[in-house]
């Protein structure tokens, strides 16, 4: 995750109660989505950015996860997401982000 985004996430986690926050990812593939989920929960795995060594424990979900998708207005989801859902590896992305969340999310 880029440095600026890490800085903003850190600021928001200081400003709001962590249990009120949720991170929504739109990554195109599993590994990058998993790394973003890990960065906001267990800290920057590359030890390069503002979240290096900072375990915020935030919950991150990919927009493809059924738990999120079912709460979105179906017409909006269809218009904004469904095309990419057809071309990306949804199962791999969902599995990776869920596994990271189960390991590291604290809230």
């Amino acid at each position, binding site marked *: *995750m*880029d440095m*600026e*985004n890490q800085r*903003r*996430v850190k600021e*928001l986690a200081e400003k*709001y109660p962590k249990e*009120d*926050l*949720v*991170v*929504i*990812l*739109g*990554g*195109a*593939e599993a590994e*990058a*989505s998993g790394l*973003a989920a890990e960065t*906001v929960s267990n800290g920057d795995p590359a030890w390069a950015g503002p979240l290096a060594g900072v375990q915020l424990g*935030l*919950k991150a*979900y990919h*927009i493809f996860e059924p*738990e*999120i998708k079912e*709460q*979105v*207005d179906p017409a*909006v*989801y269809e*218009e*904004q*997401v469904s095309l*990419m859902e057809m071309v*990306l590896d949804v199962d791999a992305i969902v599995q990776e982000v869920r596994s990271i969340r189960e390991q590291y999310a604290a809230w």
Partner: protein
Amino acid sequence: MELKGKKAIILGDRDGIPGPALEACIRSAGAEVVFASTECFV
């Protein structure tokens, strides 16, 4: 996990789902978007 009433941090991807598309989805679910960006993960 109910999105309604949550504060959402949106991390979109230029090659996946971009920030504004995620924002529209998450707003429709009743969450407040407190930050949205579109990053290039590559």
